[in-house]
């Protein structure tokens, strides 16, 4: 399912409540403060801290 970019743009990081950045591959949302990537699966962002991937 295609996801709504405008919705993603107003989502915040569940940990720091800061802004998120859509990855270039549009497969996730990066929090550059917490250094976490929240994956987008089938158009649904997984906004769970314990399932986020650490950013390099």
């Amino acid at each position, binding site marked *: 399912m295609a996801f709504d970019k405008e*919705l993603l743009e*107003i989502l*915040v990081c*569940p940990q720091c409540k800061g802004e998120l950045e859509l990855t270039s591959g549009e497969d996730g949302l990066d929090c550059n403060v917490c250094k976490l990537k929240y994956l987008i699966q089938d158009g*649904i*962002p997984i*906004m*769970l801290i314990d399932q986020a991937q650490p950013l390099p």
Partner: protein
Amino acid sequence: MKELKQKFLIIKLSSIGDIVHALPFLRTLRTNYPKAYIAWMIEERFQDLVKFNSDLDEVIPVRIKHWRKNLCLKSWNEINLIRNLLKDRKFDWTFDLQGLIKTGFIALMIGAPNRVGFHRKNCRENINAWFNNRHSKYISTSEHVIDLCLSQLSVLGNFHPQTEFKLTIRTEDERVTENFISENRELVAKPIVGINAGAGFPTKIWSIERYAQLADRLVEELGFSILLTWGPGEKEMTQKIAKSMKQKSWVAPATTIAESIGLYKNLSLFVGSDSGPFHICAALGIPTVSIWGPTHPDRNGAYTNNHTAVYHKLDCSFCWKRICPLGTMECMDKVTVENIFDAVKKISSQTN
């Protein structure tokens, strides 16, 4: 700069318990979308429950029940005003947490591009699903109503649920309670148990005599003060309990919903059946002992700890009927004064 704000509208019209159960949905939505515009459409008489909630940008009170019964020129004018307001808002998303035909129709009329509703099998009226164009996944009917509401968020993302209940009132809503307490100092000399005998369904009501016997024992054996609370149409029943008691009790003053929240905040414990006051007290974190018959505590009961649901399981239990099909009300009748007294004793000792 482009305006990014997305506009969400929650449609949850009634009643007290159902609205309280939708508060974690609002909290979770707001936590994840702090910049969004969030409004709530609600029956006017219940708006106290959300009117001062800081998670909301707007409360849209409606009088659908009144309009349906009194379809006159004044009603049409009010309907037109609401229609124009909704048109102006241009909501991007509507969340129909009621699941009825009427709320589905309202969502369709509002015409948001994204109209979220329950899975057809989770709707109270299946036809509701026709009006919405996005649906949450089916969840078991044994799941709690709060989880059912939260399931609609699955169309936006996978979020950690915020199971908080914001019940905000103004200082002036506390005034009735302050005055009542200042005139009845003896009431607050001991911890207060609030007893609310009324409920929406006649089948949810426990007998007046048993409430009176229970209240006497709570005073005599556990040293509580008893505050008998009541809502519209329940004052007479409440006064009968007070008259049937041997010990002194207090009948609560008349309150609005907001004022009743201020009153319940003073309780150490609440006793009653599946009713608005029970849901408000549970949301306020007041320990409760509740009596269940036609409705299921796993689905509609308190969501957090410090609560005891008491019921007597029968083959016909949790029938959801307003009138007992057998005419016996056996499920409520089998719950004894001893059952409730023991539950209060246990929960109060744990709380202390």
